[in-house]
Each structure stands twice: as C-alpha cells, then as structure tokens.
C-alpha cells in the first residue's frame, strides 16, 4: 500500500476513518464497488455540506474543505488502484456470453493427446527396444547420437547418473526425469525437431523403450505399452520437492537491509569471463577476457584503495550504420521460399559461409551432383546417386522434397515432406537463388 493515502487520513477525522477502513479492506474484485460507495458517500457529504451552507457561512467553508479532502482521498485511492488490476476489472456475468461453439469429439481427440503421470492419455499400441533402436538411429541419432549420448551441443538423453550434485549436472531422461509419461508425451508431440507430430504411437513406444534401454533402465526384451508403463521405475522419481522458497528464503530475506558499514572491505574476486563485441549487423562476438583481478583496487567505506595506472581498454563501441534498402523483382516467390526454408533450417544452412549441420549445406544445390558436398557423410542411397552422376534439377528436387523417404530409400533426412505444390515451387526458386 502506498504512503500518500496514509498521510491524508489523519487530516480527515471521522470521515477519513471510515474511508480509510474502506481502502484497507479493499480487495481486487470489489474495488469498483467500493469506489462507487465512496462516490455516494461524497455526494452525501456534499449534500449535507451545502444545506449547512444555507444556514451558516462558516460551516459552508468547512464543508467545502471537507469535500476537497474527500476528493483528494479519492484521487489517492485511484492512483493506488492504477498500480494494480483494480482500475477496471472486466465485468463479470453470471450467465455465459454464448460465444464460441461446442468442440467436436474428433477435434478434442486430435489436440488433447497429453499424457498424465499416472498414464491416463496413453494410446493403444506397443513397441520393443530393437524396433526402437532402428527408428531412433533413422530419426533421432543425427542430433542425439546413436546411443542417445548427444552430438555436439544437442541434448544428451542418456547417462549422467550420479552427477546431479556436481557443478554441471548432466540431466538426462535417465538421471533426472521423474516421470515416464513425460518422455512419451514429449517425443510424441515435439520430436523429431523439424518433424514434430509425425511419429505413430507404436514408433513412439518403441523409441521410448530404446531410450530406457540406453539408460540401463530396462532389459533388451522389454516391450513398452499401456500395460507395462507403470512397471518402469524412474531413477529420480523421488528427487523433487515442491517450491520451498517461502520457508527457506523469504522468511529470512524480509528484514530491513543494512545501509552503512555493511562490510569492512570489498575485493573484486572475479572478472567477466567473456568480453562481448556487438557488431552493427546484429548478433555478438565474445572473446575470453585475459585480464587478471590483480591490478584492481579494493574498496572500504573510504572509497577505492587506489586508482589503477593502466586501465583496461574497452571493447570498441559499435559504429551505427544505415540499413541498406532491400528490394528485388522475384521478391514474393523468394520471400515465400525463405518462409518454407524455416522447415529446413533446423538441419540445413544456405547463404554466405553456410556449413554442414545435421544435413549438408545447400549452396548451389541446383545443378549440383547429388550427394556431393565435401565432408558430409551421406546415406547409401545418396552415395549411389552420386556415383551414378545424378543431378539436382527442379523436378528431381520437387519429387524428393514431396516425399523424401519414398524418393530416396533409407535416407537419413528425417523430414516428412512438403505437401503443397506452391511450397515446392517456392523452395526450389529459393534454393536456386544461392550460388555455389
């Protein structure tokens, strides 16, 4: 509660006490009513005051003063109200608004697929460890590694046991996740990255069985289904407590803080690890800070112990530059293609300095021999196509991107395909715009 209304109350005597109590009790939902009640009260006060004025001038003056004070309190109350959500609560209605329409059962079935910790929501179906391995290697291993150990910076899904108390805990499905439902639910709805929602129930059961196997949590003959779901014990099931900051922290940290002589001396114990440059084109470049804490002053209530002779030089301040105007003729098509490319960008790069990611870089792909990017290890299908000298034409590209798995048997590209013809045309045009 802000201070100003408190200051006003004593000046107002009896009326103020009533109003003050009203503010004190004010609660979010009823604030509007209270303010209305106050308005009625002000009217009553001023009505009284003006009848008094007919009788005696002195009383009239007092009434006017009172009125003004009430107005001040009201103003203060509304200032106070502006800070919270009391200003204008949306009106409640007892009945319904009658907006929206009833959801169809098919719609609910399509969207409501989350799985609860007790297994409610799990679909029919099953999958075993070995099928899971096959699907995993095909669809997931490019990022998460053949054994769910994680490639480069991509998430690790297995191992990390007994690391949770370390400074850099390795939090995996095995070492950290408390519920099996979460693994099924997340893989089913959100993976593979760039192709979410494409896994069948059987595939998902199989992959989850394989992830459990990779974490030594089940034997290799394990089959996961609704029926075996509750048999699996998660390592870290007991590892979580519900937020206890209120007891452990807030209770202690609500004391009036120290203002003077709070410490004897302060020393700098660590300097920024990374110096950051911020180039005008965006992003940032960081370099290690080699400077040591040695040459820096310590502080007492007298100020710094000394002024360093040679201060470190700053990272150069970015020079602002004007943004170049962009415009070209086939803009619309290319723009559309750029948009479609977002579906590919998780795995492919194009443009200056593009490097191989999960998939090969795609600069100059049109007219290029299939499977020919240096340093990329292609699946057998592409290796054979390369040996046969097959070349990427717009037609071949459209056929491949419409149904990658059908076009190229056994391809590593975990991508379901583009359904719309206009998207296929746009992406082909877009790729064509990047030369070697």
């Amino acid at each position, binding site marked *: 509660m802000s201070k100003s209304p408190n200051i006003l109350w004593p000046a107002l005597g009896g009326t103020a006490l009533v109003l003050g109590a009203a503010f004190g009790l004010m609660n979010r939902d009823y604030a509007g009513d209270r303010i209305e009640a106050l308005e009625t009260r002000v009217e009553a006060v001023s009505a009284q005051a003006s009848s008094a004025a007919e009788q005696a001038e002195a009383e009239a003056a007092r009434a006017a003063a009172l009125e003004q004070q009430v107005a001040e309190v009201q103003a203060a109350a509304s200032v106070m109200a502006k800070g919270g959500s009391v200003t204008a609560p*949306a009106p409640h209605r007892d009945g319904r608004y009658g*907006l929206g329409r009833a959801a169809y059962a098919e719609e609910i079935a399509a969207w409501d697929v989350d799985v609860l910790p007790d297994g409610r929501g799990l679909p029919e179906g099953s999958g075993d460890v070995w099928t899971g391995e096959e699907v995993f290697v095909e669809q997931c291993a490019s990022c998460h590694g053949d054994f769910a150990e994680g490639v480069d910076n991509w998430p690790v899904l297995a191992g990390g046991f007994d690391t949770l108390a370390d400074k850099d*805990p390795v939090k995996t499905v095995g070492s950290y996740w408390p519920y099996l439902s979460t693994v099924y639910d997340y893989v089913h709805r959100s993976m593979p990255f760039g192709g979410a929602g494409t896994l069948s129930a059987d595939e998902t059961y199989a992959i989850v069985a394989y992830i459990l196997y990779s974490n030594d949590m089940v034997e290799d003959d394990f089959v996961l289904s609704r029926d075996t779901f509750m048999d699996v014990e998660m390592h870290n099931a007991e590892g979580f407590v519900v937020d206890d900051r209120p007891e452990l922290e807030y209770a202690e940290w609500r004391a009036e803080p120290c203002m003077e002589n709070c410490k004897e001396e302060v020393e700098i114990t660590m300097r920024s690890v990374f110096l950051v440059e911020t180039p005008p084109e965006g992003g940032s470049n960081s370099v290690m800070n080699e400077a040591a804490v040695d040459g820096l002053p310590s*502080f007492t209530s007298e100020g710094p112990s000394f002024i360093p002779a040679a201060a470190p030089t700053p990272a150069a301040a970015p020079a602002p530059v004007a943004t170049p105007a962009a415009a070209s003729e086939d803009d619309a098509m290319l723009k559309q293609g750029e948009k479609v490319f977002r579906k590919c960008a998780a795995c492919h790069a194009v443009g200056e300095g593009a490097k191989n990611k999960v998939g090969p870089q795609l600069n100059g792909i049109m007219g290029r021999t299939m499977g020919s990017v240096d340093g990329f290890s292609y699946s057998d299908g592409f290796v054979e196509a390369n040996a046969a000298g097959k070349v990427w034409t717009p037609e071949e590209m459209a056929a491949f991107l419409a149904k990658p798995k059908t076009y190229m048997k056994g391809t590593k590209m975990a991508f379901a395909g583009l359904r719309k013809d206009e998207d296929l045309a746009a992406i082909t045009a877009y790729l064509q715009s990047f030369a070697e």
Partner: protein
Amino acid sequence: MDDAFKPSRRAFLRGSAAVAAAGLAGAAYANGPDPLITELQDWASYTGVGVDETPYGMPISFESHVVRRNVEWLTASPISSINFTPIHALDGTITPQGCAFERHHSGAIELSKPDYRLMINGLVDQPLVFTYEDLERFPRENHVYFCECAANTGMEWAGAQLNGVQFTHGMIHNMEYTGVPLRTLLKEAGAEVSRDKWVYVEGADASSNGRSIPMEKALDDVLVAFKANGEALRMEHGYPVRLVVPGWEGNMWVKWLRRIEVTDMAVESREETSKYTDVYADGTARKWTWEMDAKSVITSPSPQMPITHGTGPLVISGLAWSGHGRITRVDVSKDGGITWETARLGKQGDTKALTRFYLDMDWDGAPMLLQSRAMDETGYVQPTKAQLREKRGENSVYHNNCIQTWYVNAEGIAENVEVS
C-alpha cells in the same frame, strides 16, 4: 602497490579527476563558436522525408545498434534459442515490441487470425472452440506486466560471465497487454474451479510447449492477450494470442495459445520437469518455482554504456521488478555494498511490472563498484550472490536474482565482476 597509494589517496583522486576532465572535453566545450550553430545546416535548409515514405516506421538509422542480440555458442541451433533485449540502451519502463527478447523452443511461427483456434476442454461442462473474433467479444482489460525468462542471469551462477547487461539481464521485457481474463473463458466453458484443479496450457507451434498452472492463479490475474503496447502481438511473441501469467516465469506465458485443458493434476510436461526445475547442491531439485523474486540491475553505466562524459553530473539508472507485487524501494551502492543510498523511482511502481530508478550524482572520477538492491511490497530484499549460493549451491540454472556488480574504472569503463 596498494600501500604505496594509500597515504595520498584523496590527493590522487583529485588529481586524476582534473586530468580526466581535461582529456574528455567535447565539442560543447570547443574553443570558439560551434559551426553546427553558426553555419546553415542541410537539414535546416532542404526538405525532409514525406509522410508517404514510411507507413510503418523503424527507429532512425543512428539507433540501429539498439537491437536484440544472441550469443551463437549458447545453443545448438538458433531455432531453439534465445536473444536478449537491449536494456542498456532503453529508458522508462515499456519495452518496444521490436526489440523485446525472444525465446523459442522450435522457432517463431506465422499463424494468421483466420487460422487461429482456441480450445477449452477437460473438466468443463462444455468443451468449446473459439475463433479470434470470439475472443475480441469478451470484456477485456489492460495491464502492464514484465515477462522474465527463468534463465535470465542464469549463466552468472558460475561467476561473472558475459560482459554486458543486455546479456546478463536482457531476457526480460515489459509491455502493456490487452486481453481477456482467463477466468472469463473458464467460466464460459463451465470449468471445475476448485483449488485442487489445474489448467494445462499449450501452444500451436511444433514444440507444443505446455505448462500446468494451478487453478488459484488461473482465476486470479492470468490474461489471454492479443495486443501489446497497443498493437497486435509480434509473431515472435505469439501472434495472434498469447498467455500472460503476471509475475511468473516466462516459459509459462505460452505463445500461439491453442488449448486450455482443466485437469485434476499437473501434467508434469517436459518444460516443468526436465527444464525449469532448480537443482540444488545436494542434487535434489525444486519444482513449481513459478514466481520471479524481486530483482534489479543498473543499466547505465554498465559495460555497454561506459561513462564517456568525464567527471561531474552522472545519472545512474536501472530497472527493478518483482513477481510478488510492487517495487517499493531500490538502494544503490557505489562501493560494492559497504554503503547504500536510496534511489529515486521514475514513477510509482506498478504491480509485477518494471520500475525505473535513478540516482543522480557528481562523479569525481574515482573507480566504483556499482550495485543495486530492490525491495518489494512484501518486504523481500534482493539477495547477494553469496546469500543465494549459500541456500542453493551453484548447479542451478534458473531464478538467479542476485545483486549484480559493475566495476567502473577511472576512465568510466564498466565491467561485469564478482566481489567478496
């Protein structure tokens, strides 16, 4: 070296200040009349840009460095990644949408209003589907709230890391939202609203980033929002509809909101188990740590905002906020926490919204260890890094609301440091 300077410290300070002032004399102190004033300038003679030139304006080119920035090596892919609000260069409290940080788990999607559907199902009398137009027909409200990623300042658990307040504290923005209270929609569907119920919210993007919210919060101040700072939400912030969960971690503010399900238990989705849980020194983890505790930081001077004007009047400026309500007070220290002064608030703080603070001083050119410390209406005082580590250890990622220190040297250059 330390001792050598001690006897004459004061004298030395004065001397160095004089040197600094002389060295930094700028154009305004130039000898003789300023040609910018005495000579006719192009812009005062030729005409400027017409009103048909810029149907929707970007900041002037001189400000083109005030942009969101990302740090490439933080994540495997920019599609599941984060960028940072340039808070060092902003003032006041409202974050313009165009430079407000983004965090996506599988990229920002383009979802049009005609294609938008919102479903309410689960423990309700009548499962419903709303269109975008339906939402605009419910009574709506306006509120300013901050949205802070739980991982803001997360790297600093391990000590002073990136040198810039944009990077240490820039996973935050503060906007004025227009939207419908979630309770209105729950009522419309006839939801069971007893305290043991939960509301599971899910987005339309590929990450289907779902979170469970306890019913008490859902009925309190959660908004289903479609406007921010007066205009439509930006794509990257969930156009056309996002959830606003005041004072609670940003991950719960589900973007591209497509489904609200009333359940009898928390779903324990990936984002509330594998992520957004806090591991403590002994390896146990805290879950359901939703509130963002009181926090503040000095935005200028800071590493990206060195003091370039030399000694004399200096405005120290920063931001404070609390997920528990209003900011009531901010203190600033120039000596690393030995002495504190109470700063001035730019205006009375709104609940669960950014509050701007200022400390106006005369800088004598002496090095400073700048810190700020926020207090909120519950009386909570922002803790030091040492206090936080004592309670939680150092293996956590989220909810680091420690007091930040900038070392400002005699040249006015600021650096991210940790102090004893």
